[in-house]
């Protein structure tokens, strides 16, 4: 299993993702600078968290136009696995690879905390190791995680099982239907606000995120 991690100017969870993907897969992980215009052979691309382009204008808005993005889109169209975490999710939404938008948290504050998630769809390559509807605990850390989609889109993704994670109990940011993560129609592109890479070791408070990476391989 070969992972690549895309680094935009302002990405800051890239090293964390590389660390986890490397530990779990046992293979060297490719770090891909956003100015690259071709991809090496890969099975899964991770778009990491952070503040690409400082989150200026809107999170993900400017990264959308980085030279590597057409390659990322082509990769996704070919069926390659794309995982966007936090800012990565925001970028995927801006590029249209995932439906909806991520707006400012209702509290208008950055929230760094731990949340409980319910696995809504465990049939995906990203979640197949989670028991159906299991509850897991993961950290979040974001200012814009408030998921929005118009009612039509919302209905479509709900009907189509594209809601992959939902906040269980407290909804930390005001997301519609407590949505914490969604995938595309084909199920090969996943975006999520919580950070699975931050709970992949017992020393850091759990293994709940490691399962996601283990599902992939």
């Amino acid at each position, binding site marked *: 299993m070969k992972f690549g991690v895309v680094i935009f100017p302002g990405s800051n969870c890239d090293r964390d993702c590389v660390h986890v993907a490397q530990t779990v897969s046992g293979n060297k992980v490719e770090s891909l600078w956003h100015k690259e215009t071709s991809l090496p052979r890969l099975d899964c691309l991770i778009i990491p968290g952070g503040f690409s382009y400082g989150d200026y204008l809107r999170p993900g*808005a400017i990264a959308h136009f980085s030279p590597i993005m057409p390659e990322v889109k082509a990769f996704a169209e070919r069926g390659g696995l794309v995982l966007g975490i936090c800012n990565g999710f925001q970028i995927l939404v801006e590029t249209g690879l995932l439906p909806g*938008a991520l707006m*400012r948290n209702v509290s208008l504050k950055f929230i760094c905390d731990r949340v409980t998630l319910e696995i809504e769809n465990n049939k995906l390559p990203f979640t197949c190791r989670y028991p159906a509807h299991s509850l897991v605990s993961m950290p979040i850390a974001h200012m814009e995680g408030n998921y929005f989609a*118009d009612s039509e889109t919302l209905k479509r993704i709900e009907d189509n099982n594209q809601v992959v994670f939902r906040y269980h109990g407290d909804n930390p940011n005001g997301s519609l239907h407590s949505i914490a993560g969604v995938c595309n129609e084909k199920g090969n592109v996943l975006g999520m606000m919580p950070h699975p890479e931050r709970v992949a070791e017992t020393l850091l408070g759990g293994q709940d995120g490691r399962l996601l990476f283990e599902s992939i391989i």
Partner: protein
Amino acid sequence: MKVKAYITLKEGVLDPQGKAVEHALLSLGFQGVSGVRVGKYITFDIQVRSEAQARDQVEKMCQKLLANTTIESYQFEIIQS
């Protein structure tokens, strides 16, 4: 030419920031305030041959970058200088 673009959340999209500002205004004692919405005001200069061309360019900028049309709408003005 000078461009002024206004990016606002679409009607029907909740605006927590607007709500917070409204709340703050009311609690500061400014009565009779309602429907506060907070958007973006982007200004810049553009060097093009004609206003029509400017219009065309700015329209594209808004579509592509300045607004996220899933949630935002936009308007702009072009001022000859």
